[in-house]
């Protein structure tokens, strides 16, 4: 659907010429759509799953096979095959062949829903995903029954031609295009002395041997001229036929070409008669020749139109002949109709105006030309039945080119009309469908690559409106570098030669922005396989591509972090061994110099303290890397948390005092639970050390109590508190509220404490106390190994 400015809008109407040409273009685009539609209706196109069950169903499939989608989807494809094919395992064999060859084509009888059979041309192609995994098959089926029917009709027509030949009073002889006898009627048999059985297949000159009566020389055979020049040939005067037994008879004859539907000469017909009795009368001969020619002409006209209604008139427009089909349609029997004026028998009206229509025979006889019937003509039969018809009239001309009568060929188009209407409606539906597709740009290109149709999806994705893009070359959707490389032309070439082109690449919108497009181009071909243009389907995959890139970047970043943590872990371990050796050596020196030199002893002690700090830092790094790499393992054991608190407070009392802080403890009864004791002690150490560091000089209180299934542990100080902005991120890695560098450490203590609490199903909350100072509250489930045990925020 095209968005158009409302008529009479503020911008004024476009000039008529522009509007007309736009409409013409739109009409042309619609016609092109119809072309696609036709090909879709003519083919049953549907998908099978890998096991051969029907997965999709199109209009063509419905029309050809008779099943509605809801009846057939999920059914095995064998339902389409005749019992004899099923017995041979044909359906499965075709799928196997398609799998091994990548495609299989087959022709044979298929069964419709109603049990009737049709002659089908089938192509099965496997569908595979980019990994080569079989997704199913596409099956395209074409109903070739009509072609079979046409062949059958031709056969019947030939039979009837034969019947006519054998009953004719003149000798008739027909040849193929190589002048070999194909038929010979009884009169000709008698005159030539050859029976049909013997004559068929022999060169014409052997069967029809003629000489010039005067010179006695062999005369040129008219069939040769007919075949060479494709014209009607009369025999030269004074020609005699020598029969097989040597009898010589003067003959008169004429030869005419037999042409196929394309006008190609396929053979010749020779009509001749013995003129022994008539030869003295030139006039009689001429008339006879004329009669033969006329009869042959009318015979041919009749023969060509067998299956359709045929009606012949004399030069006055009186009915001379009428075939059975015409009898049925007009309601007149031949014996009744002959001699009646054509307008009586062939009574036609204009369907719209109801007025009597001009009879084509009248025009044929007056003008001597071939006349087609006007559209919307209906034939009123004798009983009043009205039928839409299509017809044409042709003159029967005499040797002087004067009309001697007319032949009218017509047929009942009721069924065609119905089919056309159904087709039109289905086309309309498809057009509406394409018009409502917004996720795909679905448009057509002419063979040169110019845009021939447009849909809302195309407008949405590419930004052009229909009226500004129709007729433009599709290369404008490509980035300049692709145009420079000749990509647009190459894509069409691939589509035309390989029947399909598919690509994912950058394309350009009207506003110049680029989008990541998935493109499929397929050629459209007419019935004689000529290139009509292309269908192009484009999807905008920019968002998907962005998401994929984002995911890739994230994965890469995660991998980089993982590698860093891995490295951190290994490096820390490697650092520990030499540090241990260093500490042992320092200890050895201390032992030896202690009794001798007090100065050196003091310095060694300092060196050992520095070593101790180094060991702590390494341990901190290791904890972080263990957490980050998911290697923080907990060894649960039952113990009393109050005990642990008391022990740690005692362990840290000295360092708290040297920082000017008094450590007090508020512990009620014993609180027993299941935890990793070393890790819980680490939480306590880290939180208390944190307060000693940041709230030096103020009292620090550590308390622990029990609330239902939780142990609540608190560390409070009277220091500067935590800035509001930092409360949320204080537990993140390498974060600390104070930016000062003089505190030392890696800023990982709170992070590690938080991670340990989480690993226990617990949590730590940092807050500021109303009277000043910070408070860290740790909540731990008493038994973290219970499935339901987890503290929620």
């Amino acid at each position, binding site marked *: 659907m095209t968005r158009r400015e409302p008529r009479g809008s503020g911008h004024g109407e476009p000039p008529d010429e522009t509007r007309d040409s736009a409409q013409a273009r739109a009409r042309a685009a619609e016609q092109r759509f119809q072309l696609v539609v036709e090909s879709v209706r003519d083919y049953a196109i549907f998908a099978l799953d890998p096991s051969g069950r029907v997965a999709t169903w199109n209009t063509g499939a419905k029309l050809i096979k008779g099943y509605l989608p809801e009846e057939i989807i999920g059914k095995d494809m064998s339902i389409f095959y005749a019992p004899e094919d099923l017995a041979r395992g044909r359906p499965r064999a075709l799928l196997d062949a398609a799998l091994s060859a990548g495609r299989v084509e087959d022709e044979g009888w298929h069964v419709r829903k109603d049990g009737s059979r049709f002659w089908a041309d089938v192509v099965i192609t496997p569908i595979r995903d980019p990994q080569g995994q079989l997704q199913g098959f596409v099956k395209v089926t074409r109903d070739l029954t009509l072609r079979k029917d046409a062949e059958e009709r031709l056969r019947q027509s030939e039979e009837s031609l034969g019947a006519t030949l054998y009953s004719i009073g003149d000798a008739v002889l027909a040849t193929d295009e190589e002048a070999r006898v194909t038929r010979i009627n009884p009169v000709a048999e008698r005159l030539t002395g050859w029976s049909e059985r013997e004559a068929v297949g022999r060169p014409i000159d052997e069967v029809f041997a003629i000489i010039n009566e005067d010179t006695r020389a062999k005369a040129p055979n008219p069939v040769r001229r007919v075949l060479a020049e494709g014209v009607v040939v009369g025999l030269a005067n004074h020609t005699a036929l020598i029969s097989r037994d040597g009898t010589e008879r003067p003959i008169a004859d004429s030869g005419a070409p037999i042409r196929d539907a394309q006008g190609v000469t396929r053979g010749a017909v020779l009509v001749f008669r013995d003129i022994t009795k008539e030869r003295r009368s030139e006039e009689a001969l001429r008339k006879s020749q004329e009669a033969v020619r006329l009869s042959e002409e009318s015979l041919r006209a009749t023969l060509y139109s067998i299956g359709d209604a045929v009606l012949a008139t004399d030069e006055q427009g009186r009915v001379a002949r009428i075939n059975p089909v015409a009898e049925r349609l007009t309601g007149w029997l031949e014996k009744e109709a002959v001699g009646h004026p054509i307008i009586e028998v062939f009574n036609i009206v204009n369907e719209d105006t109801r007025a009597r229509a001009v009879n084509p025979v009248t025009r044929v006889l007056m003008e001597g030309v071939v006349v087609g019937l006007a559209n919307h003509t209906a034939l009123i039969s004798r009983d009043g039945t009205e039928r839409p018809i299509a017809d044409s009239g042709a003159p029967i001309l005499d040797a002087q080119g004067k009309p001697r009568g007319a032949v009218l060929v017509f047929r009942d188009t009721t069924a065609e009309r119905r089919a056309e209407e159904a087709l039109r409606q289905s086309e309309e539906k498809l057009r509406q469908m394409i018009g409502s597709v917004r996720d795909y740009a679905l448009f057509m290109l002419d063979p040169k690559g110019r845009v021939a149709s447009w849909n809302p999806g195309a407008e949405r994705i590419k930004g052009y409106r229909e009226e500004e893009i129709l007729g433009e070359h599709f290369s404008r959707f490509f980035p300049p570098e692709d145009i420079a490389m000749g990509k647009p032309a190459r894509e069409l070439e691939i589509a035309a030669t390989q029947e399909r082109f598919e690509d994912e690449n950058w394309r350009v919108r009207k506003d110049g922005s680029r989008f990541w497009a998935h493109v499929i181009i397929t050629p459209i071909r007419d019935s004689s396989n000529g290139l009509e243009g292309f269908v192009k389907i484009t999807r905008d995959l920019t968002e998907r591509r962005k998401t994929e890139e984002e995911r890739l970047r994230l994965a890469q970043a995660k991998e980089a972090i993982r590698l860093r943590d891995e490295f951190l872990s290994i490096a820390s*371990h*490697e650092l520990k061994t*030499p540090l241990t*050796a260093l500490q*042992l050596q320092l200890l050895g020196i201390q032992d030896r110099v202690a009794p001798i030199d007090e100065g050196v002893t003091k310095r060694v002690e300092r060196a050992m303290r520095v070593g101790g700090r180094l060991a702590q830092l390494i341990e901190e790094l290791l904890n972080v890397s263990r957490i980050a790499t998911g290697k923080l393992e907990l060894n649960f054991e039952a113990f009393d948390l109050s005990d642990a608190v008391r022990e740690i407070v005692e362990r840290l009392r000295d360092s708290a005092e040297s920082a000017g802080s008094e450590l007090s403890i508020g512990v009620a009864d014993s609180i027993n639970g299941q935890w990793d004791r070393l890790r819980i002690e680490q939480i306590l150490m880290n939180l208390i050390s944190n307060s000693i560091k940041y709230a030096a000089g103020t009292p620090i209180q550590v308390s622990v109590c029990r609330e239902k299934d939780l142990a609540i542990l608190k560390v409070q100080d009277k220091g500067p508190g935590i800035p509001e902005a930092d409360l949320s991120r204080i537990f993140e890695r390498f974060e600390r509220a104070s930016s000062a560098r003089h505190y030392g450490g890696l800023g990982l203590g709170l992070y590690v404490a938080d991670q340990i609490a989480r690993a226990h199903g617990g949590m730590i909350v940092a807050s500021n106390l109303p009277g000043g100072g910070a408070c860290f509250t740790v909540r731990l489930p008493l038994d973290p190994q219970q499935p339901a045990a987890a503290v929620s925020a």
Partner: protein
Amino acid sequence: MRNGPVLIVDDDLDIREALAETLKDRGFDVLTAANGLEALKLIRRMTTHPSVILLDLMMPVMDGYGFLEECRKDPALASIPLAIVTAGHGVDRSRLGKGAPIVPKPFDVSQLLGVLHELGSGAEGTA
């Protein structure tokens, strides 16, 4: 108290030396080996088995786990008290024998001496 030497098995020369000297300073009799295989050969040549083995885990040629497996096969060796001295990187506890204490690096001397005492090794010079 047994009187056999303390056997230090560690591929790191610095550790072997520092540990050996520290223990010698405290009156222990000390032997060293650079890997499990060297340690096995050494023990099998000794008339008096070590009183304690201090075993590193990560070593070339034969690592600590391999050494433990060999010891388990030989009843004479299986009875020797043993402590694992390790930087703790990827310790597979399931492959360590029951009851072997782990001394994580870095360690202080009092911790190590405590372990040695528990395992029943006595220094010659101490009572």
